[in-house]
Every structure is written in C-alpha cells, then in structure tokens.
C-alpha cells in the first residue's frame, strides 16, 4: 500500500487551503465538471435523472447483497470465455499475482490505463522493483507518474498542475523543449507513449464495471489509452475492486448514462471498451491472455457493516468532490490516501483503518450536497455521522482524543441546555464575563473588534481555534419573546 498520510489531514489541509494555484484548479473543476453535470440533468429532465438514479441504486443494492453469487457467476463466465480470474484478499496478494504473471510470462514493458485500485496496491512501485518498465498512459496519470505524486482528483489526477509545471516536468523527464501550448504538451505525451503501446508485453487496466452474466470488463475513457492498453499487448490484466460487478449487460445502459454525465458533464465518453476474454482464433488483434484480479483489500469490512455497505456502490465519478465545500477548499492531496473527498472520507478510513484516519469523517459540514450529487444516491452524510459515532463510542480506537470537545464539557453543555433556569443563569454570567473581557483593551478574545475571533479558550481550544465564537446577544430570543412578541395587545 502507498504511504498512509491520513493522520496529517489537519496540517495538510491548513497548507493547501492557502495555495492560490490549488484554489484556481478547484474552481475550474467546480465550474467545468459540476456545471456540466447540472446542464446534463436539465437536458434529460430532473425527473428522468431521478428514475436513472433509482434504477442504478437498486441494481447496486441487489448486487452487493448477493455479491458472492455474482462474483461466482463472473468467474465462471470469464473462464468460459478463455480468461482467468484471480482473487486477492489484500494488496500484497494482488501484487504477488501480478509479479507471478510478470515472471512466468517474461514481461519487460507494461502500459497502464487509469486504475484507482492499482493506486491502493502501489502497483507501479512493485513493478519497478522487479524490473518492469511501467508507463501510465492516461495523460493526467502520466504527469503524476513523472512528478512522482499521487492523484489529486478521482477523474482528473493532475488537476492541480499548471501547464507551466507540466512543461518543466516534460523538459526535465522527456528532454523536450519548453512549450506553453497545451496542445503541444499533449502531443509530446502522445509521441513519448506511442511506441510504448506497441512494444508493451503487458497492458494493465482497471474496470468501471464488471458484468457477471457475460464475464465482461467495461472501461470508459476519452483518450483511447484504455483501448490501446487492452488491445495491443499480448497480455491484458484487469485489476479491480470486488464491488464493481453488476448482474446483466442490459444494466449497462443506465450506468453509461449516469457515469460520464456525473463525472465530467459528458453525455458519453469517446470510448467505451468492453472486454470479454482473450482474442479468438479469427480476431485480427487483441491479447492472447486475459486475467482479471478481483481485490478485497478491506472491502469486506464495509460489506459486513450494514451502516457502511452502501459506500461500496460508488462508481468513482467524483461528483461529490466537485460539489463538496471542504474538498473544494483543501483539494485531494490533503486527504492523505488514494480516495479523496466525501466518499474518500468513508472509504479511506475503512480501508486503512479508522484509527489511522479519524480526522476524515470530521472533514465535512454535513451539508448534504454530496448526497444530492451522487448518481447512486449514496447517503454519504449519514455514513460520516456513523463513523463519528463509532469514534466517539470507541475512544481508544484511535489512540488519540476523539472528537473536538472533551466529554465533561459536552456533558455539562447538555445539562445546561436541558434546564431553562440553569441556562438563564449561565447566560447572565457569560454576558457579564463577555462584557468584561471584550471591554479590556488587552483581551486576547477581542482580536479583530466586535466578535470573539478564533478564541483560544482553555479545554475548548480544539473546538475554537479555527472557529469564531459568536458573541452572546444582549437579549436572548426567549427574552425578546417574553418582552415583545408574545404581547397580545401588540404594543411595542
């Protein structure tokens, strides 16, 4: 697995939120991707969109509830088509399967189309360690690979890179002259990778969907790199999470409508490639061998928890990222592992361990925009709350203080709020204290004038250091009601 940096979320997000380039990139994704998505919904009408969402959701729910059955069907059909399915319990096992194929088939060069699961495995690192030249071929992934970084966004991995940075990177790594035209940069990547496609022994792809009934792997791309990776080399290995399976090839219609519209605002991508095994005797081209590696790597933990199972319905469109007020400020790297954004704040803790990623479920205002945007209607806020609940109930799970408010204070707060007399007395005391503190020119709480800015209150510092504590009003609503609003004669 790649290095898990999910613990660094508070520090990393504090840095990235101030980065003007990241802010600009995120704004582009917001208007480009999410704007396009909304246009698509208007075009097909919100009513039809809701029907599609419901259909897709029901299909996914049914498949997950009977996942063993459909995985078995998938394995049988892939075998019948002349392919080979391998099951991997974890990342190490998945890597060992690939390493074994590399050794026994004498693989020297591999081309790879985009796969988030391969990021979970740190597959490229493993391949390089056994002497395979591996090339990412999606332009964004290629840039990220050259820069030795991790993806910034589920569908746009190099979203955060400016064209100037890409040009410097290409000059350094590919030896091409500097260029300021994006067309020229893409052409340089095409040039650098074209020969690799034709030389490669092994093509590696992910899967957007697996069709159980026909034993088919489906990938959706715009560049054509996915089709080249799965058509040109003599071996094709698909690597995918076990949750990608759907029952029937007829289910694809609705998913092919939802996914590109939700991801990039496209009605359909340039290429949809469906692979059902190695080439047959009469085929002009295509791989001689087809292997499918089905990966668990922590997914059965999500499957076993009825409260979290629906996170496995995710089709990785990234719509929840583009609309999330937190992701839109901090960007993808702050999340510290493979899956960023709202869905990543559920998936990453479940795959790397909740104790490793206890800050991620807090990285949400629970506004519900992600649930609105999700083409499968995944109830992300409910699951984030569920994870917060788990963290609060199991204080030792993380080996660090859970939540942002110490328990005695939370209990005291609950007591005061439940007792009107106590509340009134507390308010009077607080008002007096506030007047005293804000009145003093040397008060640390009065920074910036009227409000109590980012107060460093003892015991509450975790809660208050990044939040403005609102001033206590001169009169409470209860007092206003009593004094004015409830007056039957309407006298003011």
């Amino acid at each position, binding site marked *: 697995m790649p290095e898990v940096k999910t613990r660094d979320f508070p520090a990393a997000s504090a840095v990235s939120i101030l980065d003007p380039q990241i802010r600009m990139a995120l704004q582009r994704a917001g208007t480009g991707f999410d704007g396009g998505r909304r246009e698509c919904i208007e075009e097909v009408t919100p009513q039809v969109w809701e029907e599609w969402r419901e259909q897709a959701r029901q299909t996914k729910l049914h498949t997950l509830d009977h996942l063993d059955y459909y995985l078995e069907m998938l394995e049988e059909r892939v075998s019948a088509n002349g392919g*080979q399915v391998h*099951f991997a319990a974890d990342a190490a096992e998945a890597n060992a399967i690939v390493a074994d194929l590399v050794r026994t088939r004498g693989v020297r060069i591999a081309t790879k189309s985009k796969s988030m699961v391969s990021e979970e495995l740190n597959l490229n690192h493993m391949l390089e360690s056994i002497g395979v030249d591996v090339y990412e071929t999606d332009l964004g992934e290629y840039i990220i690979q050259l820069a030795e970084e991790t993806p910034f966004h589920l569908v746009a991995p190099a979203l955060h890179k400016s064209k100037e940075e890409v040009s410097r990177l290409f000059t350094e790594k590919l030896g091409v002259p500097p260029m300021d035209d994006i067309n020229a940069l893409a052409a340089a990547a*095409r040039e650098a990778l074209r020969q690799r496609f034709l030389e490669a022994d092994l093509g590696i792809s992910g899967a957007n969907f697996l069709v159980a009934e026909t034993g088919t792997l489906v990938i959706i791309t715009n560049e054509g790199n996915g*089709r080249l990776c799965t058509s040109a080399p003599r071996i094709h290995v698909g690597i995918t999470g076990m949750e990608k399976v759907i029952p029937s090839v007829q289910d694809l219609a609705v998913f092919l409508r939802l996914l590109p519209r939700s991801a990039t605002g496209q009605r359909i991508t340039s290429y949809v490639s469906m692979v059902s095994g190695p080439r047959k005797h009469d085929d002009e081209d295509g791989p001689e061998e087809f292997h499918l590696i089905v990966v668990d790597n922590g997914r059965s933990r999500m499957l076993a928890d009825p409260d979290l199972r629906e996170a496995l319905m995710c089709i990785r469109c990234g719509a929840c990222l583009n609309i999330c007020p937190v992701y839109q400020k901090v960007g993808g790297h702050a999340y510290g592992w493979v899956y960023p954004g709202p869905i990543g704040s559920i998936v990453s803790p479940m795959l790397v361990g909740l104790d490793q990623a206890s800050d991620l479920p807090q990285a949400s205002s629970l506004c519900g925009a992600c649930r609105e945007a999700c083409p499968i209607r995944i109830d992300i806020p409910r699951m984030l709350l569920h994870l917060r609940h788990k963290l609060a109930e199991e204080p030792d799970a993380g080996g660090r203080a859970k939540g942002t408010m110490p328990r005695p204070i939370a209990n005291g707060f609950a007591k005061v709020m439940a007792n009107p007399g106590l509340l009134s007395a507390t308010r009077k005391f607080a008002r007096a204290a506030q007047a005293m503190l804000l009145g003093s020119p040397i008060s640390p709480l009065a920074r910036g004038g009227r409000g109590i800015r980012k107060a460093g209150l003892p015991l509450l510092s975790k809660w208050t250091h990044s939040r403005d504590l609102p001033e206590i009003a001169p009169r409470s609503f209860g007092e206003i009601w009593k004094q004015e609003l409830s007056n039957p004669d309407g006298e003011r």
Partner: protein
Amino acid sequence: MAEATGTPKSEFLASVRRALGRQAGPPQTEYPRLAQGIEQLEDQAREVRERVQANRGALLDKLAEVAQLRGWQVRRTPDPEEAMDYVQSLADGQGANRVVRSRQEVFEAVPLDATLTGMGITVTEVAHGEGASRESLREQIAMSGMGITGVDYAIAETGSAVIVPRRGLGRLVSLVPPVHVALVRPDDVIESLDDLFLMRRLEYMRNGGDMGPYLNFITGPSRTADIEQTIVVGVHGPKEVHMVLLG
C-alpha cells in the same frame, strides 16, 4: 490457461458470504433482467426492429445531429460515388500515403480501393492469413494516415459507432491512425443504449454464451482535458473522426 493464483475462489467467496451473513445460493427473488429468457428477448428484439424500421428516417436525422455534437464530422449521402469522393478528398487533405481498412460488407457498396490506389495511396485490407501476419498488419496500421471501417451499430441516442469482433476487423484500425472514417449504412442505426444491449444479450444467448472478446464504442475523437481542463483532441486515438452516413 494457467492456474489461478492468490486466494482460492471458494475461500474468497466464503469470506464474502461471512461479511454478508448469508448462505451460498442464488437470490431468493431472481434479478428481473436475468430472469428474462431467450423467447422474451426475441419478442423484444422484434419490437425494436419494427420500431427502428418505422422510424428510420427520423433516427438517421437524430444520429447525424447527435454524432455532430459529439465531435464526428458527419457527411450524409445515399450516393456511394459521393461517399467515395468525400473519402478521397479527406485522404487528399491529409496527404496520406497509406490507408488501412477493414474487410466488411460495406466496402462492396462503397469500393474505395481503386479510387485511393489511383491517387497513389497504398491501401491495406486488415485481414490476417493469405500471407499477411498479425505483426505485419500491425505495422501497416501504425504507418497509416487513415483507417476506414464499417460499423455494426450506430446509436442515435449517443451518436456512437459500435464495433464487435469479426475476421477482418481489427480494433486498432479505428484507433491508431490519426484519422478514422466510419461508413454507416441505414440498416446499422438503432435508437438507444437499451436497444444495443438487448440485441447483444440476445446474440450472447443465441451463441450459447459467447459475445465475442470485445465490444467497442467510438463517440467522437480522442480527447483529454487533463491539463488545466482545456480540451485537446487526438491524444492517443484519432484527432479527426468522420461519419459517412449512407442514407
């Protein structure tokens, strides 16, 4: 085919069952789509064909319109001579010395070879055997400035050309050369994605569980927006795609 490595299937499936807390076996209620047998699909497919037949003119209009929106350069003509002139002008504009094409029925209606050869262009039909190995054909494809194919389906809903495997139709012909020309006959048009997958599922069942090793959609040129969300065409696949609609 080699042995599976990793966790044995039975063990892996057992762990999934443990997570779900369920016993082995099919769902209590069969998934509705999988419950439909070949007779029902035959009936539905007949309805689809009748619907397409009755609306062919409107569907061709829609295909032309949507395909254009998705990035195809659409040329619509029922006249094979005019279609050939168009392809000739494209080859001329490209300055292509080599062209590859598939071996498909449509080339009997639109016999391009003589026209292109007359321009001094080397035309290779991509079909192995008869002295042409897969490797040599691949080299021909890689050197060609244009690839020409027919299609198996053209979907009006999405503006997509769909290709399924057959002798004489490589996947790389429509992918590797910088220009792809798709020749679409009126009979190829279908209305929607639902139509396509219904037909393919029926085909799968008729063939006793064989759908062929691939099914490829092409919808417009190769494109990317991976640098600063700026759209660039022709990154790994063709930068230019032409749909010649023969009706």
